[in-house]
């Protein structure tokens, strides 16, 4: 089998992994080595595939042979699909050739479980060794730790990779038992804890010894499949919050479940992937990480799922109308961040700009505030936008209308003569 064919099989098997980021690393170039990691906060996207997802790393599996039988997975033992495996040398060649041509930012290496988790991890380590030591590759590497691998091997992998990840896959233990019988919660959380502890130690060592080796300097991430089990958004969001708090993850990725196989325990094959739900979870994830929200503020037992009509921040704002309007000239940073339509960048710009003079409503748009949402929730120098009239009812309607064209899977609807929205 030639490399082209292997690449096709192993890319196809790896594409359901959501993570494809090159952020978090900040390694300058070194003499005699090729490459560096992007100094930009957001990483560097090298292309976008036809589904709109960013392509930044060469995302492939070492092999798609697998001894596990996770029901939701294309690569499961009982699925009749073509199998292939890269040799460590082939993979290293491919990575370095793509990297030199600026096709990619680095390598994302995951794998099916060939023989045992330890054997597979050893193969991955071998490929990364060739890449780092023989080719002197200094770019980004994201390596996946396979649940059940010996801690010594995870440790070796961490010194070769920039970021590591262990996939949680299913948001609850019951889900794991039903759909991924070979994985246990313990086997997933153990390497995650190890990566966290080792990463912290490595940072402490670096303070003492300047040239101490770095363990996964870009931290770790994980991935959850959304929609394969009956877990609510509230459950998923609380789990996410716990992971950020207790395991210091850099990112939690959500992957809308794409039905690839028929199974009694899974949604049927003609169910569309829950893209809107995934979108809402990402929005809420950002609120947790950058906006100072807690999961309990966004959802609760009475409202366990996100409102499909408006985003989580608007939803929170509509439930807390007494908090608004916020006066942009005096409100503190935290209060500004609570206004729908104001983000981290525009909030910081407002803080800087109001030292130069009082802000007017007209100025806000130029600072990057999304006024079609924000106008209902703020005042500038005591005034709201010109001619703005609304009631709590029309507010929801306006916010929904503002977002609808941007949503995934939004179908264009023929306007009806008899369906004109009531004037506000």
């Amino acid at each position, binding site marked *: 089998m030639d490399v082209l064919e292997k690449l096709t099989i192993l890319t196809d098997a790896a594409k359901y992994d959501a993570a494809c980021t090159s952020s978090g690393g900040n390694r300058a170039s070194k003499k005699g080595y090729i490459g560096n990691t992007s100094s930009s906060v957001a990483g560097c996207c*090298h292309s976008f*595939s*036809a589904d709109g997802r960013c392509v930044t790393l060469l995302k492939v599996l070492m092999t798609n042979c697998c001894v596990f039988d996770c029901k939701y997975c294309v690569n499961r033992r009982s699925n009749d699909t073509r199998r292939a495996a890269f040799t460590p040398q082939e993979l290293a060649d491919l990575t370095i050739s793509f990297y030199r041509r600026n096709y990619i930012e680095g390598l994302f290496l995951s794998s099916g479980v060939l023989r045992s988790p330890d054997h597979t991890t050893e193969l991955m380590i071998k490929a990364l060794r060739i890449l780092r030591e023989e080719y002197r590759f200094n770019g980004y590497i994201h390596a996946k730790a396979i649940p059940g691998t010996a801690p010594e091997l995870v440790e070796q992998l961490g010194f070769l990779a920039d970021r590591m990840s262990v996939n949680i896959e299913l948001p609850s233990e019951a889900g794991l038992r039903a759909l991924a019988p070979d994985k246990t919660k313990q086997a997933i959380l153990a390497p995650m804890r190890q990566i966290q502890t080792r990463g912290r130690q490595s940072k402490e060592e670096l303070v003492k010894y300047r040239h101490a080796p770095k363990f996964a300097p870009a931290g770790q991430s994980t991935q959850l499949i959304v929609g394969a089990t009956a877990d609510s958004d509230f459950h998923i969001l609380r789990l996410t919050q716990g992971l950020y708090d207790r395991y210091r993850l850099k990112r939690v990725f959500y992957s809308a479940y794409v039905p690839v196989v028929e199974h009694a325990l899974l949604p049927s094959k003609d169910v569309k992937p829950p893209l809107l739900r995934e979108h809402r979870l990402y929005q809420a994830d950002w609120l947790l990480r950058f906006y100072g929200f807690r999961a309990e503020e966004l959802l609760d037992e009475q409202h366990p799922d996100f409102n499909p009509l408006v985003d989580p921040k608007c939803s929170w704002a509509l439930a807390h109308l007494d908090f608004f309007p916020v006066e942009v000239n005096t409100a503190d940073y935290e209060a500004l961040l609570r206004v729908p339509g104001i983000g981290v960048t525009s909030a910081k710009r407002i803080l800087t700009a109001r030292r130069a003079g009082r802000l007017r409503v007209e100025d806000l748009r130029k*600072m990057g505030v999304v006024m079609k949402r924000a106008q209902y929730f703020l005042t500038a120098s005591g005034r709201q936008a010109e001619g703005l009239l609304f009631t709590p009812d029309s507010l929801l309607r306006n916010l929904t209308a503002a977002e609808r064209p941007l949503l995934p899977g939004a179908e264009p609807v023929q306007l009806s003569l008899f369906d004109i929205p009531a004037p506000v």
Partner: protein
Amino acid sequence: MTEMVYYYDGSFEGFLCCIFDSYANKEVLTAIYRDEDLVPTLFASRSIPTDRDHASRVYRKIVKCSPYTAELLRKGFLTCLPDKELYLYRLVVKLLREGPGFLRNFSDETLYPVLRAVRHLNGEAHLLKGFVRFSDLGGVLGGEIEPKNRVLPLLRSHFCARYQGEKFFLYDRTHREALFYANGKAVIQPLEHFQMAPPDEAEAHYRLLWKRFYDTIVIQERYNPKCRRTNMPKRYWNTMTEFQDEAYFRAQSSPAGVGAPGVPAGISAPGTRPGPGPSAPGSEI
């Protein structure tokens, strides 16, 4: 104060000299044009000779007042903002008249157009750091771009650091200039005509591998062309490997005996899934 139109040679120093002369002659500028864009005008006009000494005096003064404005000036000069010289000139005039306080106000009518243009430039440079595609031409890496702004000065440090052991060049089709790098030295030079050399066997193979990777990584069930266009506008596609037609993937120096394969295996139009059959086994799930 009389109103004047100035002509300069198109260089950054030349532009700084326009500022110098406008103060020296106590004239207010209503337009600043490059020498080659000579347009008939009703205003009195003057051609400004470039004097490095004057230019550096102006620049030093601006750095002293506000280093941030100096950066805006340098970057603003690279943007594709129409009449950028006039906007930048007005920014300097306001800075010298009022001091740097107004620079905090992002919605200031003198500052905002420049700020927006510079953001556009930075955004384009950031995208191109990823979208540039190099070809290995016998050990030298070569690439082409078609940006709206003059991004080469911004891309220089990025690519020189990343490929510090390599030799490479990057050609800007829009502004007809090229960045050359070899042995730790980089220069940006005007280059009127450029034609990329055809790929050899190995290069064509890697192009094909990348194209195949790109076509395979998409999840068909999530097909979302609008999202792709938002993140990667179509104007960049022209120079990207994954959107080229078949000829791009055919080695030119291949022996004639092998025979032209017609469509090399695995090539499909952008956005379509790879053809069915043994070449793309997993895509049929």
